[in-house]
């Protein structure tokens, strides 16, 4: 028995002794020998941990070129003094955790960020606060990086005076999760970023878009919330996107969209909620998208689908209390609408199969009028306009003949 205990103890001691020189911890702070992070970085070797105590560190640019773990204890602040890029990461396997990184310089020439990751991989940025930086976290040509549970706050007034919250350029396999981003230009901006998961982030009240990506194929966006961004969410020129369980709401304005899809193909948009947007989804030149099991509630236009879109399927969605359900700008419709629930449907279900027996035409005459003469909104819901709409529903003449749901559901889809 005793022998066994001794064996375990000595094994532990051995492991400790062996491990120590390889993973030293350097403490930084007023009461430690090392006062600056820069000094600690000089002293550290690959694999070391730098533990930074609370306090304000004004050290210009802190460049990390070794495989280190930087841990803040008691919320240390790295201040860029509005001149420098506070933290630049050049080495792989770097971890930055528990800092407040604030006041980066503002430079559109250099794209300064609170934390910028240059041409490397396996960097992990977690549990930090990024306050008042030009860009928040900037990943340039990075792979396999993790950005989690950070809070990014900026105070942008105009979109040319502020950078993006989490910005990725030419990256692959990122994990962006649980972050909160507010006041930046775009909350999350991805360009040429592939195989990336964006999950559980909150992006609200950013100056331009809550989420913005281009040429970023094979990415997934799950359980994010995009609220009250200047122009909602815009995604462009991308294939194989999955967007599920996200919430797009309160994106108000003449060019604001819950979700703007521009030349997006072969994608899935499912189980999302679009609420209180001027336009829930606007689709331009987008093909082969499945839009299903989404909730469209209290939007001005739930779905605007331009004539340049084809082979899209809209099915099993709930359209509830939208001013206009569907609008389009042409008469040719090459998309399928079926088995959606439309609260404006007034048909009947005599055969009790829970599907209406007469088709529903989600495009109202007046929505087409408003499309052409926006000021006509002035007369919406006046008696005359209501009369016009009713007549058109009975005898369609101007609205696209084949834009209809042949099997409208009598009850909302349970979501």
């Amino acid at each position: 028995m005793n022998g066994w205990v001794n064996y375990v103890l000595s094994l532990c001691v051995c492991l400790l002794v062996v491990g120590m020189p390889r993973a030293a911890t350097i403490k930084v702070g007023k009461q430690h020998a090392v006062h600056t992070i820069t000094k600690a970085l000089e002293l550290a070797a690959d694999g070391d941990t730098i533990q930074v105590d609370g306090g304000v560190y004004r050290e210009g640019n802190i460049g990390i070129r070794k495989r280190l773990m930087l841990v803040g204890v008691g919320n240390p602040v790295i201040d860029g003094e509005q001149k420098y890029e506070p933290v630049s990461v050049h080495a792989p396997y770097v971890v930055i955790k528990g800092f407040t990184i604030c006041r980066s310089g503002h430079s559109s020439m250099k794209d300064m960020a609170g934390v910028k990751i240059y041409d490397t991989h396996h960097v992990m940025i977690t549990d930090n606060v990024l306050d008042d930086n030009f860009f928040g976290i900037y990943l340039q040509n990075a792979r396999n990086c993790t950005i989690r549970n950070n809070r990014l706050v900026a105070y942008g007034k105009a979109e040319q005076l502020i950078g993006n919250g989490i910005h990725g350029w030419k990256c692959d396999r990122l994990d962006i999760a649980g972050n909160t981003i507010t006041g930046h230009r775009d909350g999350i901006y991805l360009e040429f970023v592939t195989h990336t998961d964006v999950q559980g982030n909150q992006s609200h009240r950013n100056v331009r878009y809550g989420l913005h990506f281009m040429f970023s194929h094979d990415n997934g966006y799950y359980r994010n919330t995009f609220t009250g961004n200047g122009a909602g969410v815009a995604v462009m020129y991308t294939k194989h996107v999955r967007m599920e369980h996200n919430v797009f709401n309160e994106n108000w304005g003449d060019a604001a969209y819950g979700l703007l899809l521009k030349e997006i193909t072969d994608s899935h948009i499912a189980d999302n909620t679009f609420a209180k947007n001027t336009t829930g989804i606007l689709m331009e030149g987008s093909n082969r998208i499945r839009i299903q099991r989404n909730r469209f509630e209290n939007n001005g236009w739930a779905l605007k689908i331009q004539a340049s879109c084809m082979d899209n399927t809209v099915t099993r969605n709930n359209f509830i209390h939208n001013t206009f359900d569907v609008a389009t700008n042409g008469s040719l419709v090459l998309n399928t609408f079926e088995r959606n629930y439309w609260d404006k449907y007034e048909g009947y279900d005599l055969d009790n199969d829970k599907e209406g027996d007469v088709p529903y035409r989600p495009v109202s005459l007046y929505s087409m009028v408003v499309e052409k003469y926006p000021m006509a909104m002035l007369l919406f819901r006046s008696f005359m306009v209501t009369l016009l709409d009713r007549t058109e529903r009975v005898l369609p003449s101007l609205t696209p003949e084949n834009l209809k749901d042949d099997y409208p559901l009598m009850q909302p889809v349970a979501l």
Partner: protein
Amino acid sequence: MNKIIKYVIADLLRSRTIMVYTAVLAVLSVSVFSMEDSAGKGVVSLLNIVLFVVPLVSLLFSTVYLYNSAEFIELLVSQPLRRDTIWISIFVGLAVAMSLAFMVGVGIPVVLYAATASGVMLMLCGAALSLIFVSVALWATVRVRDKARGIGLSILLWLYFALLFDAVVLFLLFQFSDYPIENGMVALSMLNPIDTSRILILLQVDVSAMMGYTGAIFRKFFGTDGGMAITATILVLWTVLPFWFSIRFFKRKDL
């Protein structure tokens, strides 16, 4: 003044028409709210009823009441009373009766089923429209002595406010869509209290759509405190001005 108001109201509240009006509004509201699955849709369905029926009934009922009360008004004028006292009392009496009928018929169901911003706006606008069209009726009847012609004028006025005006606006809108007519259109809508009310309710019910292109213009006007104050003032003016013209005329009128 109070005593005449008291008697006018007592008389009106016992009137069968007012009771039927209240009951019809109540039945309509309750059935609309229990048929529609959401309060918002209920408000939308009620919107047209309110914008259509309230002005018509307020205008027509007041007109008929005033013509039927011609002798009573004569009697009051022969009494030691100021003419403006009499006319104000009749206005207040009619206004209270019509808005009370509306508040009971639509207000209570709205409070029960849809106590939302849009519901409250619907109530306020309906009450305002009741007052405005009582005021318009006073003006119409004081100007036209003959009952049949007076009722005819009321119906024409209603047709104008409820339908013709919108047709003209729509026509102008299509004709001049290439010009910057936004502010003009907002100003134009102020010329019709039904349109002003409708837009106010629209800003609550269809807030998302109204935030779009046109909405930006409306919002700039109606959405700001200043714009709301102007709108409220316009609705008050719509109540006060026809009444003021009518009282000026009534003071010089031969009975």
